[in-house]
């Protein structure tokens, strides 16, 4: 049996608070291109142009090449996506398990806000 001492309790609480803060922050910046790229890759591997078309279809956001590759660079740095080996110049990317987990957390937070907002609108 593991007993939590007071300092680890505080640490755990701190983590919860910070996670909650991160979710809230992501919700505010839900047009963040990294989130859009992750959502696009959640469906399957895609190269840059395929991602651009997909994002435009499901989010109505037309990402420029500079913005898209800025997001790809950041996501690869974080280890949330990785390139798939290919002989084509159009290199596809795949979402990693860590990236999937991150996307899930972000979307859960977003869903909570959407749910709350819609219910409040209904009762208003």
């Amino acid at each position, binding site marked *: 049996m593991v007993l939590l001492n007071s300092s680890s309790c505080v640490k755990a609480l*701190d983590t919860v608070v910070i996670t909650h803060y991160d979710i809230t922050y992501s919700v505010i910046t839900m047009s963040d291109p990294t989130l859009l790229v992750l959502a696009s890759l959640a469906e399957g591997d895609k190269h840059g142009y395929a991602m651009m078309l997909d994002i435009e279809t499901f989010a109505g956001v037309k990402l420029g090449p500079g913005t898209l590759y800025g997001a790809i660079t950041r996501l690869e740095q974080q280890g949330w996506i990785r390139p798939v080996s290919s002989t084509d110049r*159009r290199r596809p990317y795949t979402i990693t398990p860590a990236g999937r987990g991150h996307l899930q957390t972000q979307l859960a937070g977003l869903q909570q806000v959407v749910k709350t907002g819609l219910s409040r609108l209904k009762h208003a």
Partner: protein
Amino acid sequence: MNRLAKWTMRLYPARWRKRYGDELDALLADTGADARIVADLFQGGMRMQFKTWSLLKLTLVLGIAGLLLGAAGSFLIAPMYVSKATLQMTPAQISANTDAAAVGNQLNEEIQLLETTLLSRTSLSTIIQDPQLQLYRDELKVTPLEDVIEEMKSNIRITIIALPGAVGRRGPAFDILFMYPDKLKAQQTVQQLVDRFQELSAEAAHPEVAGHHDLEVLDVPSLPVLPIYPNRHVLELIGAALGLSVVFAYRKLRKKKLLAWGFAIPAVLFGMLGAFLADGASILDLVNNQWRSTALMSAPNGTPEQIAQLTQEVLSRTTLSAVIQYPRLRLYPDQMKTTPLEDVIETMKKNLAIRPVGDGRHLTVSFVYSDRFKAQRTVHMIMNRLDEANRRLYGGLPIDPATLFSSVKMEILDVPSMPVTPAKPNRYSMAVTGGIAGALAGAIIALIRRRWRPEGDIPVDAVNG
């Protein structure tokens, strides 16, 4: 447009291009290029450069940017021209056994005294309002005369200079400088200042021709602009410190990094808020503001002892009680209800200062009070009382006995110069300052970035094939 887009891709760092260049090129082949895409690539390229630049590169680039900005900014500032005249003061009669150094020292003092008179509000307002000169015309439309006088005062310099061989019979030389946006007016103003200086010098040398003013008002009582208590700068500092402490405590409690924008920005904002609140409290009179009004008087014909006598007379119980209870003034009304008059007089004595300046023939009258208008009116009344006492006691102060410097002559060494190049802005120094500021900013950004996000690297090794 395609060529422009390809060129814009070159703005990305080489390492990044090595890793993603082919992919981005292929993407551009699919999307085609238009102005929006070029702008997006430009923005992305700059952002990527900024993220990956080394300390040296960031310092250099921001330094050069600051240099260019400083140089460009210097062209936006209106040029100021300086006109200069050089004068020399020489005693006409000097005995053989007089110490030359002592003569020089006394003449230096004389110049300083004349300078005080020349730069007095009365003297400068005459020059400013001269219809031929029309100085500070635009400022006078929107700013009170008092402020324009202060501005003019800050643009005049009177400095004693060392001339080679200026010993013995010749007295000290000095420059009169004036800085103004119009070079012709700068020159004309210096001419006026020189004329006025000579007039004042002649009046000082021959008091009998200076009229029969026993007491002259050089500076009328000032209407205070800022309270002397509380000191707003101190309040601002306290507010800023409190603001910083709040953010510091918050970050400490939340166990967050102290060296991050998340700390720095709220700290600065809270600091500014604290300073603003402190300032606001003072402006809205929520704190007990204290204002000081000051006037400058001179008694060219009086002796320091006589002036001390006059001061004593004015600070007497009778005079002060009359001032306190003067119906239009009514000083210390709250204190008068609860405290005996004697104590109120003592309070007033603490706040009223009549002090000799310079040679003891000039004196300042200053009064500190919680109402700035009453402070000014009180100084007025005290000056009137001084004048009354002067007439009553002496019926006119005796003329000073002739001294060694009773006939000092002024000699113009250099007539006011017509300025050629502007003295302000100093474009070279502005560009250099901009460069140094930019370089410092670059170094700070690079250091913070290194501490905050040490990775910042392009994942070059992540490609599997």
